[in-house]
């Protein structure tokens, strides 16, 4: 996305309904400063996040992806959905690395409903981090007919 020629990263965040989505909601209600670059997709639990969503987001044009839910071990509204997340995401990291996507473009972690400032800070820092990495523009990888 270009804004007067300046690169503005597009970031997709998959957030669990009970913890980080609540934190993001609170951050907004509390008027905490957040960059507009992060688009949130709500799921009930981070356990619902199929790795394919991450790939799809990058494939569609995301420059960065965030996954965030309830702190393990016990914060999960569904007991241990977040366990599945921390089992899957290290492998997703490995996969993305092999695809050539920098580790700095993918963040997964935990922000509880009480940690709205932490969410606001993450969006600010992650956006800056992705901004430094520059555009990913995955579709271009495959667009040229000559290739």
């Amino acid at each position, binding site marked *: 996305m270009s804004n007067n020629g300046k690169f503005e990263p*597009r970031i*997709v965040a998959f957030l669990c309904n*009970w*913890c980080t989505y*609540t934190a993001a909601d*609170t951050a907004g209600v509390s008027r905490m400063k957040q960059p507009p670059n992060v*688009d949130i*997709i709500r*799921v*009930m*639990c981070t*356990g*619902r*996040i*199929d*790795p*394919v*969503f991450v790939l*799809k*987001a990058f494939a*569609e*044009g*995301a420059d960065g992806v965030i996954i965030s839910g309830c702190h393990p*071990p*016990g*914060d*999960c*509204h*569904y*007991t*241990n*959905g977040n366990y*599945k997340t921390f089992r899957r995401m290290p492998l997703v990291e490995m996969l993305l690395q092999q695809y050539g996507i920098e580790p700095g473009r993918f963040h997964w972690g935990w922000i*509880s*409903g*009480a*940690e*709205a400032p932490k969410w606001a800070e993450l969006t600010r820092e992650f956006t800056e981090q992705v901004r430094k990495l520059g555009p990913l523009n995955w579709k271009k990888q495959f667009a040229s007919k000559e290739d």
Partner: protein
Amino acid sequence: MAKITITIDGKPIQTEEGQTILEVCRKNNIYIPTLCYHPVLEPYGACRLCTVEVTRHGWPSLHTACTHPAWDGLVVRTNTAEVRAVRKTLMELFLSRTPNVPLIQEMAAEYGVTEPSYPVEDPNEKCILCGLCVRVCNDMVKAHVLNFSSRGVDRKVGPPFMEKTRECIGCGACTIVCPTGAIEIVLQKNAIYAAKPLGPTAAIYVPSLQAVPRVPVIDTDSCIRFRQRDRSNGEIEDACGACQMLCEANAIDFTQQDEILELNVGAIVVATGFQMWDSTKLSQYSYGKSPNIITALEFERLSNAAGPTGGQILTADGVKPERVAIIHCVGSRDKNPNAHEYCSRICCMYSLKQAHLVRDKTHAEVYEFYMDMRAFGKGYEEFYERVQEEGVVMVRGRGAEVQVLPSGKLRVTGEDANLGKLVAVDVDMVVLSSAIEPPADAQKIAQLFGLSRTPDGWFAEAHPKLKPVETNTDGVFLAGAAQGPKDVPDTVAHAGAAASMAVALLNRGEVTISPQVAVVDEKFCSACKTCLNICPYAAISFIVEDNVARVNEALCKGCGTCVATCPAGAITGKHFTDDQIMAQIEGLFRVPELVEA
């Protein structure tokens, strides 16, 4: 038990067989002096003071009432001239042995003995060799530390060879039974005493005085019986038991154990309350540096009629304070990271009440350091007015600092915002209206019930306005300060609402569940069994006959973890489907076509 009749001092008394004369007299309020008697110990007849005249078969003779059985037809006279003469002789002997023990002096005076009649060997002697301590140590505590040694005039009480012994468990039973104060235990400041605010309590005590039913408990760490059992690895099982012997209701049961009850319930009300914020976290209030700087909760104990001072408000020196300062918002409404930003909400009103109590009980000058007076409840403002009229000095401004002066006085400084000046007042007692905070284990409880917590740490209700007692976990409700600081009326209202919600849920009989569940499309399920271990609710089971996995919709909570897991794509949620989420992702990157106007 057979009924008998016994005549005491000319009065016929109907009673039961199997008691001593002394026991019958005590029950009938007939005074017989004793020194070596204790109701929980076997009678010993050492002091002889309970001597009475007993007439059997027409023959009067003198006997000790503590050891003589009460038989049918006995005639007892407790106060004849002969009896008094014996007691007088005994008191002469006692006073000559222990001339400076107040109890002996008093009792001797009753028989006209005011000076030792015989040469005094040791004016500091206190032991009268009654043997109470020996009996309690051997028969009750079963520590077998104390006994008599030597004979005749050399007879004395002590541990073997008068040496310190590890067998002593420091229970203090001997000091309690000793009538003359001859035994002293040097207490070291130990954990048992330090743990009890404002003075020690007994090993059996009522933990919450307002509780219904008001039942005492035994602190098994302090109780002699349990300590002896634990020390001896269970060999000494029957030490002490004095409370059991004395309890007329037979309510003491040493065999009771802590129990973990497993109950199947349809609703849970979480009412885990609050804890006091640790007032040492802000050092400017000097909490812990003087015994006269106390928290409001300690003040409550101090002014409690069942408290250590019987409800009198006294400084640590045991005198009434002349000036008292009450500091509001200690640890509340404070951005210091050691404190809380929220208002603890209950402090203004209890501080006013405590100011009123101080004025009422001690007439001391009271200075209230407050930021704002939050007297918003029904009748609260009126109470605030009344306390002001009682002469309490209101200083508008947070108490900034409490200093302990070399004299022991306490100097409170702060700004009086109304005067626009710094003020200081020297007082005898400072009461800190300390913050209340979520219990230290709130996170564990939150995890147990799947609750979330608001940034201040209290449990989050499902909606701040519309669902004040519900939580995000079905069937779990919040009551009272667990959800946030509340005073008693608000807690009662909140708890009532929670109880109603719980009962309403129980009475429903049939519950509707969320339609947001996962479904297995059996056409695509290939029985790989990957999903079985994934579900936190064990809602997915494998149906052997059909060779497919199936979701129990009543158990499924709709988290979608299995949907993301199923490698065959055979499980879908009835919400947040793959198609919906994929469409959302696509939607984010669909650039809208701008039409030039």
